[in-house]
């Protein structure tokens, strides 16, 4: 066992480090390191422009979308090289949040299902950061039950082959900054729910598309509602066959699970630092035995995630596929973040209620407290993740589904349910 690079990895790391050192927006480094959970990575300048500038710089030098083929704007690098890049990018990786969904999920789906001509047109501007994509999946009636979505796509009756879209999406990250969207719709409500879905892509500037920011429980607005009113798009913007949308969507969701090695933050190093400084009865909090027990349990969750990531990197380094252990990442990190924030406020005593720039660490723990509920829901709720671990990793049977083999239009909803 060791934590050393192979000679090839070391050479690659050296090359990456030199390039980042010469090219990264260093004037933003401090701000990126200090950024609070759930707020913009950068406040001192336009965060969108800063993100796009860094992405374009990487793209021009051949460091964008490392895992994509070169003809679509990528760099055709190995998974381990992608991991090393991420490690070296450090605080600047926070600027990439704008592109996470486009590069990680929409891009791979377009790559798998679009025509060659479309791929060559759509993917390079996505890789370069000139165009931003969002994913139009969740709906008010279909979050965890994604296939329960109700946005309709109907063939236009003018013989053009065009589709007319009506409905509503919700929880769309970054829709207000997006140029394109990956859109899943229902084209046939008379068949069981998974079978009547069809996937499209569309310009977010298409007439009839309206983006409305959601004011979140923490006061910020990262998510949006997107309304579709008689939106007309050509049949050429369909991905996969009519009725094949569920299969197409799985490409996206599988890619989400492949983005490993980055390691989610639990906030532990910040809490530890706080406990070194805070006092209980005139002594550093970190010397209190009750505090120590709490901290230790957070510490082993943090290090467990870190070394689970390293086990995955080990597999990648050997050219193998990582095991299922990475499926625990968000489940552990989300709950830890929330518990840890509650505990940090507890240690602040009655003053923990205050949330401003005079709060310890610039109000970091108050920010985590208010943002972490979303971490436990977005991209698969804790409960869905436990189902996935139970069913796909441990091999337990699926839940009994009462909507199986029932035409979609006959499935009861919150609206149709008789009391």
């Amino acid at each position, binding site marked *: *066992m060791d934590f050393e690079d192979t000679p090839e990895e070391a050479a690659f790391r050296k090359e990456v480090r030199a390039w980042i050192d010469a090219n990264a927006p260093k004037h933003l480094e401090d701000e990126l390191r200090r950024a609070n959970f759930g707020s913009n990575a950068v406040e001192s300048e336009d965060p969108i422009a800063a993100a796009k500038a860094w992405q374009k710089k990487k793209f021009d030098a051949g460091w964008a979308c490392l895992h994509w083929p070169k003809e679509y704007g990528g760099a055709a690098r190995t998974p381990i090289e992608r991991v090393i890049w991420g490690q070296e990018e450090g605080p600047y990786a926070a600027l990439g949040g704008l592109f996470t969904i486009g590069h990680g999920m929409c891009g791979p789906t377009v790559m798998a299902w679009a025509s060659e001509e479309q791929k060559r047109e759509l993917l390079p501007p996505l890789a370069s950061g000139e165009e931003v994509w969002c994913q139009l999946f969740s709906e008010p009636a279909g979050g965890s039950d994604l296939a329960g979505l109700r946005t309709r796509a109907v063939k236009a009756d003018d013989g053009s082959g065009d589709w007319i879209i009506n409905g509503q999406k919700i929880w769309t990250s970054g829709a207000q900054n997006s140029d394109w969207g990956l859109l899943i719709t229902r084209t046939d409500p008379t068949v069981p729910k998974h079978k009547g879905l069809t996937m499209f892509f569309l310009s977010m500037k298409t007439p009839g598309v309206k983006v409305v920011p959601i004011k979140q429980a923490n006061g910020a607005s990262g998510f949006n509602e997107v309304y579709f009113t008689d939106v007309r798009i050509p049949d050429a913007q369909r991905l996969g066959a009519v009725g094949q949308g569920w299969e197409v969507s799985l490409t996206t969701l599988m890619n989400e699970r492949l983005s490993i090695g980055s390691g989610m933050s639990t906030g532990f190093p910040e809490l530890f630092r706080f406990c070194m400084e805070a006092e209980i009865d005139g002594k550093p909090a970190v010397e209190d035995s009750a505090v120590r027990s709490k901290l230790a349990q957070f*510490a082993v969750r943090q290090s*467990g995630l870190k070394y*689970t990531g390293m086990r995955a*990197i080990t597999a990648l*380094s050997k050219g193998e596929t990582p095991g299922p*252990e990475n499926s*625990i990442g968000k489940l552990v990190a989300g709950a830890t973040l929330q518990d840890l924030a509650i505990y940090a406020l507890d240690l602040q005593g009655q003053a923990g209620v205050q949330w401003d720039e005079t709060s310890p660490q610039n109000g970091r723990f108050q920010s985590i407290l208010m943002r972490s509920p979303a971490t436990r829901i977005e991209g698969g709720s804790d409960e869905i993740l436990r189902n996935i671990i139970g069913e796909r*990793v441990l091999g337990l049977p699926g*839940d009994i589904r009462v909507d199986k083999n029932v035409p979609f239009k006959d499935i009861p909803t919150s609206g149709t349910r008789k009391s």
Partner: protein
Amino acid sequence: MNLDFSDEQKQLRDQVRRFLAEKCPPETVRAVLEGSERYDKPLYAGLAEMGLLGAAIPEEYGGVGLGHLELCVVAEELGRVLAPVPVSSSIYLAAEFLMQAGSDSQKAEWLPKLASGEAIGTFALVEGQGRASPDKIMVRESNGKLSGTKTPVADGCDADFAVVAARDEEGGISLYLVALDDGSVVREELQTIDPTRGQARITFTNTPAERLGPSGDGWHIASQVMDRAAILMAFEQLGGADRTMEMARDYALERMAFGRPIGSFQAIKHMLADMYVSATLARSNCYYGAWALGASPAEMPIAAATARVSATTAFQHCSKNNIQVHGGMGFTWAFDCHLYYRRSNALALALGSLSTWESELIERMGARNAETAA
């Protein structure tokens, strides 16, 4: 980056697993639980014969000279089957004390016998209730003789010798090698929550003792050796956590209620997912510990406490929820769930309780932070 065992180490694991499947089925554990033997002698002899007891003992002292990573592999397998043998006392502790602090003649006298299973050693530290600390040590050395009582001492009734922490004539803590067959030693078997591993109260009265390591250095040496043992013990706990998770999973697949396998109920499924999460965190933390044990003395204090806290938490979590998944059947003597429940709670206390290790972990992280800042 290589945070995994090698192919050879994985082959060793398969070999040990096959051996234990044959020689240590649950009946073997039950025989010790219910019978008069405190450990399974044929199994212990078999482990010695395969060279597993001497895996990390150098060849010049009768071992196989593989290394501690191999010993981690063996420990995990022993933990999976609850092997009722004194490996932790004799190998993780006594042999480590000799290798870390023993003189050449002490090593030459005892290590070959520990490797061959001809002798069993143990470590006698605590003297009753509460968290161990230097000022609680009342067993005294005077003129090369020990007097006082140690309790509990793991495998104390079966060990041929013990490494004893005692107060020396200068008032410091030193370590002593003590032959337990001396007529002055009184050993009483204790009733415990886990009779599959023996515990004893040992009283010394002017018992001849030979110092191990430098005078006054006992607590320091003991804490280093306990760190090493903690990682090996963590692998045993990891094996137990994995096995109890599998037992619960298998039962959830097979047991029907309300016309469906109980594993299809989310209440059960989510409990199992959480068991998988703790076992996975423990495995990753144990690998970190194994790396430190094999390669990084500087990282040992934090790695040992991390592996230990994580593995203790995981095994207790999995063993208690294994009973819960089994429902009433899990609370019968006939089902094996209680064997794991007993062991998980006994191992959680061996080498110092969970809260002790939690406190150590944070103290050590603080010390490292202070060092980095200085």
